[in-house]
């Protein structure tokens, strides 16, 4: 098991290296001279030369890329923002708590709503409740999140004046609308996955056995059915973390939350490509780590998976003794 985790951890390095190379190249081929864009058309050649010198933009592509990778992997340094002159890593880290807060609030909401409605839907398959729940879930998946955000602002801040339309520091209820906006689509996806995964399990023989020996219905649903349906649900939660981060970018812009996503979009619009590069690489790393954690989490939920690793080991040992 530990061997597997270490292997996965090591595998992250080439993936992240690839991510850096792809995004760095995309930013490098961006049209326009960075110094001119940042300093304006009226900048003197001397100031442009100084700018290029400061940010190491005079070097050829491969040297710039090499320096970037070296600084990132060994010093966790993403260079400086062209716009503010501050280290990109600092800019990101100061904004990280807001993004994480938004993403985790939305994820908690999505998991609670998605799992509960998914279970109800599966247990009461083809009833009115099931039809409504599946219909609403598809609705949630099809709703453009930015539109949902605008509708919520329209209804609850403009018309009803119940909550603020932008996130205000220290005012907890200003986080309600962004959480709903971000959580809705993921809730729909989790609900659909929970339902179909539960339906697979419900028809198994051991469920009938559990009922036959007189287990309480709630125990059958939660312990026998839900626990066995968990793996695909956890997978989908892990995979959805990526789209949750992408959704957070949008949400932060609608509700003006000072997070990584807002920083990213501002950087793109102001052509501050070093910051864009840093933000994309940071988010991709976050997603990769989360997916790794989810994979490792499997074995804690499902002893069958753990035993396959053990099985391999024992088998190898047996083979070893047989050979020896």
């Amino acid at each position, binding site marked *: 098991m530990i061997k597997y985790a270490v292997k996965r951890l090591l595998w992250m390095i*080439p*993936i*992240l290296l*690839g*991510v850096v190379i*792809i*995004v760095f190249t*995309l*930013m490098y*081929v*961006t*049209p326009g001279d960075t110094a001119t864009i940042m300093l304006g058309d009226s900048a003197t050649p001397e100031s442009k030369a100084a700018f290029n010198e400061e940010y190491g933009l005079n070097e050829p592509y491969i040297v710039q890329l090499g320096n970037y990778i070296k600084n990132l992997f060994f010093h966790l340094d993403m260079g400086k923002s062209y716009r503010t002159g501050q280290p990109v890593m600092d800019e990101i880290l100061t904004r990280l708590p807001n993004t994480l807060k938004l993403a985790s609030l939305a994820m908690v909401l999505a998991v609670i709503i998605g799992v509960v409605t998914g279970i109800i839907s599966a247990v009461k*398959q083809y009833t009115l409740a099931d039809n409504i729940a599946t219909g609403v879930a*598809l*609705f949630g*998946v*099809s*709703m*453009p*999140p*930015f*539109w949902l955000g*605008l*509708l919520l*602002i*329209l209804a609850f801040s*403009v018309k009803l004046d119940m909550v603020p339309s932008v996130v205000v520091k220290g005012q907890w209820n200003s986080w309600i609308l962004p959480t709903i906006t971000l959580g809705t689509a993921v809730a729909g996806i989790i609900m659909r996955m929970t339902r*179909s995964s539960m*339906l*697979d399990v419900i028809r198994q023989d051991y469920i009938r056995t559990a009922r036959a020996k007189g287990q309480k219905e709630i125990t059958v649903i939660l312990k026998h059915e839900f626990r066995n349906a968990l793996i695909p649900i956890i997978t989908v939660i892990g995979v959805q973390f*990526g*789209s949750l*981060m*992408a*959704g957070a*970018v*949008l949400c932060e*812009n*609608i509700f003006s939350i000072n997070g990584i996503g807002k920083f*990213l*979009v501002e950087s*793109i*619009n102001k*052509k501050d*490509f070093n910051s*864009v590069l840093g933000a*994309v690489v940071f*988010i*991709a790393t976050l*997603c*990769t780590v989360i997916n790794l954690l989810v994979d490792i989490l499997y074995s804690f939920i499902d002893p069958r998976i753990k035993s396959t690793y053990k099985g391999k080991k024992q088998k190898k040992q047996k083979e070893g003794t047989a050979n020896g």
Partner: protein
Amino acid sequence: MAEKLKKERSNSLWAEAWRRLRKNRMAMTALAVMLLLILVALLAPWVAPYDYDANDLNNTFVYPCLAHPFGTDNLGRDILSRVIYGSRISLQVGMIAVGIAVLVGGTLGAVSAFYPKVDNIIMRFMDIFMAIPSLLMAMAITAALGNGTRNLMIAVGLSSMPQYARIMRASVLTVKDQEFVEAAGSIGASNGRIIIRHILPNAFAPLLVQATLGVGNAIMSAATLSFLGMGITPPTPEWGSLLSTGRNFVREFWPMTIFPGLAIMLVVYALNILGDGLRDALDPKLKN
């Protein structure tokens, strides 16, 4: 005799699937809605009541009425006409983006499945691609290429391409080892014939389902990028860019926000139902 053979052949996977799809009332409604929307988009100059760019500064911010069913915007332009013309751009962007994704991803996936030598290289490359959330990838690509409809299509298409590669690879791999492929080989069919007549048609079904769902996602991603000021910028009436303008007036005037969003949702909802229906129709085993 030849006629009879032909008849039997048309009773293929696709004919069967179509028969099953026709029974699914939701999916057929969704299909009708999509065909209607495509028709409206094609006939926009004749269907739209006004020109999408006709300013009328005496009639700005008109609420929905008979003359303007969706109202008018900040420059007095008819919102219904703008949404109709917007459907041209949004549907086009969605379909062409998915076309790019299917073409590039499908080819890479198929190559991966057929040639084990390059399989590892291609799929590891896809792993890297997939580590970046697709919307962020699309943002990075639009940042590199610049704004514009064509660049938006490329960005959205490329960013969703790895999914298609994975699906194509998986389905070709399953089909490749099935008995009918072996049977075709044993009666002397050439490799080319096996690939084109036997493997690809049978491997194509999951790709079609994903593409149907994918057009909806592509429209949504394109609208998202335009909404954030990347991709298609005003005054072009793409749905996302309509919303991005409407957002500035969300406090004072709701029609500019409501109607373009409703259009996006209608299309994505219809495509999701149609995609689900297609999946059930093409693979009855999957349906509970």
